[in-house]
């Protein structure tokens, strides 16, 4: 037998012995419990005990095919079967006994590097595990905070790009201030050989990963994981806390909730608190804790404000707030006026501003609609109404549009979200309500109906007004 093998075996034995003999916190630790692990967006229950304990965490690595977007599959490498991995919650001072299990059907070895661990490789050196095996190591949760964990097996980038990350929260002894709702949101970027929207089973592209050219940027592992029926929920008056992580592997997130201001942000999930924040940076391999009170009902959109990622690559989620409107906080649209800049100084005019010109006939309506379409719709549905595959449905020759004009009016009046099928292609995205007048909506839709092979017809302001009152 080769000497090197003997050395290796001895070395491995030593390595596995070390954690057990170096535990210095054992004295204060009372009892033992199994950690409750949750899949996003759920967060394990608050820890109410006032003492340190031994917490046993059992996490199983599964390599499995899942859906990354409608019709698009991907082989995710997961901590606990989901992306992001299971949320782990312990308390400052706890002694954590970690069991990492690598399922026998898996192809490759894995390990775990928890940023909450003080020790070599954050646990990675002690948890390197081939398929069909289990590694056990222990660590003391010394520093409170919200930490990313991830696989650190070579090639690290590929393991992370396949979804191997999650969050571990070490509650401080004092605990964070109480809130009404806690949610787990984690961003990640994905690199598929096929382009965004190409259906079927997609494989990892190392070329794109090296170029940092992501096809998908998503919250909680897939496009739509937090929209429609999967939206986060809250009620007016409640305080919501988001544990926001970013697995990367490459991109930094400009995390923002459209229509909300974060009352408090624990910057980078550390001790520093920043107040009244619009957008907070979440680094790859980092996290932030954001708290905000929801004052009015409605749908609030979670985005990476690097905005093409949100509207084109999937980094978009929803928080649905139900309850009574509060017009003192938010009025809804009260009036829409023409804004005509008159040079630098503020001017007052004795006469009322001239009324906008109204369309006198169908031809004028189409003409005025063309202009309004350019300012209000073209960003998403494109100049020729062709839309963008996978993100924005076409208005050109759209079966969805032509089938029901009232439904189209409603769409422009109130926005649209959830799954629809247009010309055989599924869309599950959000169209915001644009706050347009009846006249404008009538003009735009008449223009659209009479362009790009659509069925024609005319929408009148009266018809829009009727739908608005419904």
């Amino acid at each position: 037998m080769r000497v090197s093998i003997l050395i290796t075996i001895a070395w491995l034995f030593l390595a596995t012995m070390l954690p057990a003999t170096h535990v210095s916190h054992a004295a204060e630790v009372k009892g033992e419990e199994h950690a409750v692990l949750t899949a996003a967006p759920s967060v394990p229950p608050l820890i109410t005990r006032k003492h340190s304990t031994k917490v046993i965490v059992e996490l199983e690595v599964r390599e499995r095919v899942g859906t990354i977007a409608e019709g698009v599959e991907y082989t995710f490498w997961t901590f606990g079967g989901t992306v992001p991995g299971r949320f782990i919650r312990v308390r400052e001072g706890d002694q954590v006994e970690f069991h990492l299990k690598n399922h026998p059907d898996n192809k490759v070895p894995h390990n775990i590097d928890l940023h909450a661990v003080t020790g070599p490789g954050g646990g990675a050196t002690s948890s390197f595990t081939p398929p069909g095996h289990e590694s056990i190591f222990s660590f003391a949760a010394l520093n409170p905070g919200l930490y990313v964990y991830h696989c650190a097996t070579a090639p690290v980038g590929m393991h992370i790009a396949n979804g191997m990350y999650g969050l571990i929260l070490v509650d401080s002894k004092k605990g964070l201030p109480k809130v009404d709702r806690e949610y787990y949101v984690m961003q990640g970027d994905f690199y598929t050989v096929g382009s965004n929207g190409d259906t079927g089973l997609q494989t990892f592209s190392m070329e794109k990963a090296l170029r940092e050219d992501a096809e998908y940027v998503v919250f909680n592992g897939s496009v739509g994981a937090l929209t429609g029926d999967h939206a986060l929920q809250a009620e007016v008056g409640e305080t919501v806390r988001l544990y926001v992580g970013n697995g990367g592997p490459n991109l930094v997130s400009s995390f923002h909730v459209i229509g909300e201001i974060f009352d408090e942000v624990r910057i980078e999930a550390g001790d520093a608190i920043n107040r009244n924040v619009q957008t907070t940076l979440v680094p790859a391999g980092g996290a932030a804790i954001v708290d905000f009170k929801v004052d009015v009902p409605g749908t609030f959109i979670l985005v990476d404000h690097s905005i093409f990622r949100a509207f084109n690559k999937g980094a978009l989620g929803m928080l649905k707030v139900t309850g009574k409107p509060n017009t003192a906080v938010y009025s809804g649209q009260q009036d829409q006026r023409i804004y005509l800049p008159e040079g630098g100084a503020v001017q007052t005019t004795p006469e009322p501003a001239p009324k906008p010109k109204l369309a006198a006939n169908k031809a004028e309506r189409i003409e005025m609609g063309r202009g309004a379409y350019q300012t209000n719709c073209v960003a998403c549905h494109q100049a020729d109404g062709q839309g963008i595959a996978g993100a924005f449905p076409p208005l050109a020759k759209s079966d969805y549009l032509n089938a029901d004009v009232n439904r189209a009016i409603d769409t422009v009046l109130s926005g649209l979200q959830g799954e629809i099928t247009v010309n055989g292609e599924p869309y599950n995205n959000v169209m915001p309500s644009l706050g347009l007048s009846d006249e404008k909506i009538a003009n735009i839709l008449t223009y659209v109906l009479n362009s790009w092979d659509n069925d024609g017809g005319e929408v009148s302001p009266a018809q829009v007004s009727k739908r608005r009152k419904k």
Partner: protein
Amino acid sequence: MKLLSAGWLILGTLSAFGAGAASREMSEIPGGVYRPQYGTKDEQVEVESFVLDNYAVTNADYLEFVTENPRWRKSQTPQIFADAAYLKHWIADLDPGPDSGPEGMSPVTNVSWFAARAYCRWSGSRLPTLAEWEFAARASESKPDAIGDVDFRQRILDWYAKPAKPPLPKVTDGFINVYGVTGLHGLVWEWVSDWNSVLLTGESRVDAGLERQLFCAGASAGSADPSDYAAFLRFAMRASLQADYAVGNLGFRCAKDRSPN
């Protein structure tokens, strides 16, 4: 305890007859040099000409081996030579069962390094060295060294990226490389004789560098070809193993020195 095992193995091989799998086909791999993934950019590894099995050892082949060598049957083999997962997909000592593929033609997996080594000795050969295996695995259908081809690399990666459930494909499935060898990629991982030599060489400066590559930097700038992710996956897999481990996607094939003539 591990020292004892060496003696046991020698005994084991002395009692073998050097029989060997009946329908064995091997190909000659002409020697050459290549730059390994781990090491400095100008480090070269020289490989002498050798002979390699065209196919991974099948469950049927392995059945022959355990039939002749009762001490390697799953109920007989001590755990220090093969952990509890040894031949776990077999139904019984001499029954490979449905997970061994049609006519047992899937590659045998769930075998420890000790077991693989004993098999090769019994069949009058040996495990290939890491350098030999890596050298032969650089070949595509048409080229001895296709590692620089993006398509070739992507094909390898695609296999690594998909979980595999038993039964595994037949050993004859897959592409035949330019030497005549099938299934080095796209079938199973394979044991080599010195799989762990990269993990620990005894030279601490090198070890520190290796650990950095394995756990942190991944494809770090200093390595021979930072974009050869497939090689990193193989090295990571090998580094995670111990000699008694039996793993569901890990099999082997045997090699020989080229006969001196």
